[in-house]
């Protein structure tokens, strides 16, 4: 079986669901003959026709808004935003309508929509093309927020997102769109939403990261292992709702934790992880949870983006600080 990249896994999942369900409609800017600017919809229009794989006029508010009406009528719209930096005009419809229709109508109408967007930095793109503002969406009640970090998880989680009866924001870490190849059978087998994945087991420290930041986090874990520190690496994958149980289970072993994300620190999802660990697992901790994140600055133009993004060194340093703290208190 051929190995495929994360972006090809996205295409494979879209094709699988379009084949299985005539209600699935894929649309967005340049998703048709062009196959999307990242080629995530490559070949879909040819295969499923222009009635189901549709190029829209250039208007993000519209892309978000029509999904609400389409979904209320029983279709399964999968809308692509070209970059996360251009999703903001769509927020009104996501926040005020898609996430609320089921509740507002007491279950009469619902919005099974997937809003896809490539996100994250590190590809030397112009301004507005490197954003990681997932926390904006995590704050919205009624939404699911999903970030895959491998081809297999991109395939399985996107299938789950399209089949989910509620709206899902599906953020694709574009820095690793083509970073690794994996065998991903087109089995139609979805992965569970609302469940974290343990990507690496270890008893000394829990590292939590998602999306492209897992690349550096796993590298850091490798480096730490060479020094005798065994890190457990957890990918929440569904950022909202957050599977804190998997984190707590890990803390039962490790008693130490570092959260890594590309997004700015203030009110980033690391803060939510820290808060929930405090609420549910304070007594398990031997040291305060540390966050390794983007800085509370605007995402810089690309010459400085590697200074902004959490790198292996920052993660390793944080792990050592947390462990030194625990040791210093004789714990």
């Amino acid at each position, binding site marked *: 079986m051929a190995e495929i990249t994360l972006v090809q896994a996205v295409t494979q999942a879209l094709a699988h669901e379009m084949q299985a369900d*005539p209600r699935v*409609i894929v649309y967005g800017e340049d998703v048709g003959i062009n196959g999307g600017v990242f080629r995530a919809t490559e070949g879909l229009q040819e295969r499923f026709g222009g*009635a189901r794989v549709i190029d*829209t*006029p250039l*208007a993000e*508010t*519209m892309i*978000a*808004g*029509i*999904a*609400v*009406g*389409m*979904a*209320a*009528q*029983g*279709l399964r*719209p999968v809308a692509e935003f070209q970059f996360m930096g251009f999703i903001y*005009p769509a927020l*009104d*419809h996501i926040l*005020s*309508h898609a996430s609320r*229709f*089921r*509740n*507002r*109508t*007491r*279950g*009469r*109408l*619902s919005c099974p929509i997937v809003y896809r967007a490539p996100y994250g930095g590190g590809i030397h793109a112009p301004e507005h093309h490197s954003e990681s503002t997932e926390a904006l969406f995590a704050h919205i*009640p*009624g939404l699911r927020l999903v970030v895959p970090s491998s081809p297999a998880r991109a395939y399985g989680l996107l299938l789950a997102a399209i089949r*989910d*009866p*509620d709206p899902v924001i599906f953020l694709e870490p574009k820095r690793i769109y083509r970073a690794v190849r994996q065998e991903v059978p087109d089995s139609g087998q979805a992965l569970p939403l*609302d469940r974290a994945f343990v990507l690496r087991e270890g008893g000394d420290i829990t590292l939590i990261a998602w999306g492209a930041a897992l690349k550096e986090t796993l590298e850091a874990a490798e480096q730490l292992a060479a020094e005798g520190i065994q890190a457990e690496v957890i990918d929440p994958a569904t950022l909202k*709702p*957050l*599977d*804190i149980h998997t984190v707590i289970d890990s803390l039962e072993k490790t008693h130490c934790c570092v959260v890594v994300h590309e997004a700015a620190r203030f009110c980033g999802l690391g803060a939510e992880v820290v808060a929930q660990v405090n609420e549910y697992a304070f007594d398990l901790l031997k040291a305060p949870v540390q966050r390794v994140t983007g800085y509370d600055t605007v995402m810089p133009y690309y010459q400085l983006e590697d200074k902004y993004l959490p790198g292996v060194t920052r993660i390793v340093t944080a792990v050592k600080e947390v462990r030194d703290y625990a040791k210093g208190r004789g714990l």
Partner: protein
Amino acid sequence: MHKPRMQPLASFDIASLQYLDERGQTTQTLPDFATPDALVAHYRQMTLTRMVDGRAVKMQRTGQLGTYPSSLGQEAIGVGVGAAMGGEDVYCPNYRETGALLERGVAIEEIYAIWGGDERGQNFRHAREDLPLSVPIATQILHGAGVAFALKYKNAHLNEPARVAVASGGDGATSRGDFYEAINLAGEWKLPLVVVINNNQWAISLPRSEQTACKTLAQKAIAAGIPGLQVDGNDVIAVRQAVAEAVGLARNGGGPSLIEAVSYRLCDHTTADDASRYQSKETLRDAWSREPLVRLRTYLDSAGLWGDNQEEELQRELTQTLEKGVRNYKETPKDAATAMFDHLYAALPEAFLEQYQQLQGGG
């Protein structure tokens, strides 16, 4: 000085439509649907709309209802739109649509529940596919475009009947990108969408004259490449005729239309507003002279279709209908606190179970 020579490339006209003038006299032959029975039925629904609105304002003033947006003076638009739609069509309303909602079969107690702070009002027992009232301005027009896409798609590919989406909005809505993005898309995709703008001259305190430099709102259709028409929004016959024609066009694959119905908001924006701060008494008095109910009543009287006896009988009947709705609204017990979680997701994610249980235990 250089004067460039230019060639005329395209030109456009905007038409307006009226059957009953402000004195209740016909300005042209009435359309076929305007039978005595139909006109009396419209008069009935417009009267009911005014009563439902009036009681809502009274209930708000006495602490029995939350903020309420009356449609006083705009009853012909709601009733005309509702009458022009097929029951199977999908209505995508803004928040000032009492008349159309009643036409669509939404219950009086449901309308009161919505403004009385109870989401269950939006769970329409009839009109199950109609969208809920939309409070954010113009957003429902984009939802309408999405509905129209779905209807067209299901008609073409899933063997469903040809149906039409009708979205409504106010004059202020035409300044929003959502409005323009919706009609632009609908034009390009030839969607079965009819957009009806209730131009009641006010977006809270901003008059129509300060909303846009456009002479009409109907002409905004031209930029989207779709038909645009202005109708006398205080003439229920004109509203119904225009909307019915647009709905028919859309149903037959002819694509979307924009209809500007010119009316006047004879009330405050909502019960939380005081229009006397920005609107002169003279303007208001002048607008009352064109209001839709008296106009239709005058016509019905002069055509020998109506009289004091019928009016008395109607008032009696509608009062009963209204009182029943009020009673049903007031007698509906408050929803369980946990209802706020029950329909947040199809199934409550485990992560929120603890909060759900906290609420269940009394908070």
